[in-house]
């Protein structure tokens, strides 16, 4: 126990004394939040659309056909009432919805203003704004064709409402992704670097030759980064809440628990990387390519997964950050709990167990020859 405390104390000294790295650890999340405060736009295809049509008539059917024909949307459900919409969004089955009012054709015929409601899931602001834009275009086009040549003054008024993210701020969205990114840097990169640094200075030899067991060395090395990772996560959440007013609708405890799982996964990856390398430079490259790039590109953090080619989407299933981002978005923006998030949580638990075992095994009690 004393040995473990000694290890921890030493590691804290390392972290506190390496000023440049310390500044990076502290400033990185702050700066990232600001940078990603601006949305990153991308094109979207195959948006999953739900339609609420209480009383189908000629007009609603015509508009529905146009949505189908636009090539951007795929109708996943046609519902008679608004009630059925909520679960679809929560499961992620629908990304947008078109809601017709009953008797639309009749209102139009009598020259009364008719309403069409367009709902989008703004937990994905890119997708959300595109749904809005396309849907409005489709409806307006139809209304022009219908109304302009014949009966002037009769219009379709599309009312737009956002769900979950009513202010449409993309910052709401990137915060979960950013948490994944920051945790990856601190857990994977820092762990890999700090372990390989011990190899470079030759101190790993001295640690190995001592009565410390490999698990003690790992726990001693990794715990401080776990703490630092946790603190960063809390920092990012606070900053996001205070500056960008990002909501936190779900359970904080659940979010922190999922964060812990993700940190464990990332730390294990860091240990695995360091086991295969003996220089800090190689470890940095390994962490960059092996963990940071996938977290940036394949987690849905910046680029929507649904607009990715199938092979990349397939790869994204083994990227831990994908699952964490999914879970964190669910908790923060939708306020949903384990009832919906258990599959992704299970994936994270499985990944953590697998990688922790693999990384402990990769850490030998002797020098590799």
């Amino acid at each position, binding site marked *: 126990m*004393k040995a473990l405390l*000694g*290890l921890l104390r030493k590691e804290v000294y390392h972290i506190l004394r*390496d000023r440049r790295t310390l500044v990076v650890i502290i400033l990185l999340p702050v700066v990232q939040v600001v940078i990603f405060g601006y949305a990153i736009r991308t094109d979207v295809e195959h948006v999953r659309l739900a339609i609420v049509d209480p009383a189908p008539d000629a007009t609603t059917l015509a508009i529905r056909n146009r949505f189908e024909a636009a090539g951007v949307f795929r109708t996943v459900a046609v519902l008679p009432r608004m009630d059925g919409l909520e679960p679809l969004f929560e499961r992620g089955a629908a990304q947008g919805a078109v809601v017709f009012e009953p008797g639309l054709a009749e209102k139009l015929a009598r020259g009364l203003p008719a309403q069409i409601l367009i709902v989008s899931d703004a937990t994905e602001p890119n997708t959300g704004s595109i749904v809005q834009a396309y849907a409005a275009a489709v409806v307006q086009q139809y209304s022009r064709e219908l109304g302009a040549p014949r009966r002037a003054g009769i219009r379709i008024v599309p009312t737009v409402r956002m769900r979950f993210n009513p202010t449409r701020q993309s910052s709401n969205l990137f915060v979960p992704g950013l948490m994944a990114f920051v945790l990856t840097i601190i857990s994977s990169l820092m762990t890999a670097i700090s372990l390989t640094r011990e190899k470079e*200075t*030759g101190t790993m030899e001295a*640690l190995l*030759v001592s*009565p410390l067991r490999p698990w003690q060395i790992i726990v001693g090395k990794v715990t401080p980064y776990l703490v630092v990772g946790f603190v960063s996560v809390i920092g990012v959440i606070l900053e996001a809440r205070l500056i960008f007013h990002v909501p936190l609708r779900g359970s904080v405890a659940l979010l922190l628990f999922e964060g812990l799982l993700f940190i464990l996964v990332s730390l294990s990856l860091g240990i695995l990387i360091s086991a295969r390398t003996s220089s800090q430079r190689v470890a940095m490259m390994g962490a960059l390519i092996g963990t940071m790039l996938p977290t940036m590109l394949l987690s849905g953090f910046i680029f929507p997964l649904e607009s990715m080619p199938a092979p990349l989407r397939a790869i994204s299933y083994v990227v831990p950050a994908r699952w964490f981002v999914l879970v964190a978005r669910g908790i923060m923006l939708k306020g949903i709990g384990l009832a919906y998030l258990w599959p992704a949580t299970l994936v994270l638990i499985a990944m953590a167990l697998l990688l922790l075992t693999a990384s402990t095994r990769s850490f030998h009690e002797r020098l590799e*020859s």
Partner: protein
Amino acid sequence: MTTPADDAVAVDRVSKNFGSTVALADVSFSVQRAERFGFIGPDGAGKTTLFRILATLMAPDQGRARVLGRDVVSDLWTLRARIGYMPGRFSLYPDLSVDENLRFFASVFGTTIEREYQQIAPIYSQLEPFRDRRAAALSGGMKQKLALCCALVHRPEILFLDEPTTGVDAVSRREFWDLLDTFKQSGMTILVSTPYMDEANRCDRVALMQGGRILAIDTPQAIADSFDRPLFAIRASDRYRALKALREWPHTHSVYPFGETLHYADKRTDVPADRIATEMLAFLSSHGFDDASVERTAPTVEDSFIARMGAPEGVRAA
């Protein structure tokens, strides 16, 4: 009488390869308790690999090694608490201070500086003035002393020092050996490796190593004395030409630069030394080296090393 089981170190036919590189080839030796045993040889001789095996950091491919009566492979966890090891690179944390480094290594072994003060006092007293200085800012000699202190802080029964004096200036080297002398009476066994031939004399016994093999094991004096012919030191103002000339002399067994002089050994074993000297002087002056002098000299460990290496072309005349 000591039995092999009482030896501090017993190595039996150990081999170790890295890919196609032979690091150790069939090495056997034993070291007695309280002995100071030196391994002397150039880079690549296998010293570091041998020390890593003895310090339980590597398993041999073949053969067995026992330290303090225990097997270095199967008993590694019992051994690790009882041995001290100072790796070739000093193995310190540059961003920690002298005291922090020492405290850390003490804590790793479940002890404290205060409890072990008696043991480390001779070295720690020299380090104490800089206890708050970061290890990175220490001179080479001080780093070396701190590394030794860290390897000693848990009161090991045996100490493995892998090239502790490499890259350290002559003053610090000498001080380091003087420090090791202070542990003599405590009965600690010390194994030390070095590329410097002149450090052989600070050991009770030495093993000469080359290419993964042990060329000889004995006391430094006995190794030097094993040089089997009279050895002469030749001085001439133009060393290089004198060397070239002597290579052409039919009686030359070996001739090579040695400090300010050339060391010469004759092929003929049945000719008295003073006659060889006279003949050589005549030969040198006939080649224009009028200022040359020849005198009999005592062979050193280095001369023996060269003789045992089986000199390749150049050093030994054909």
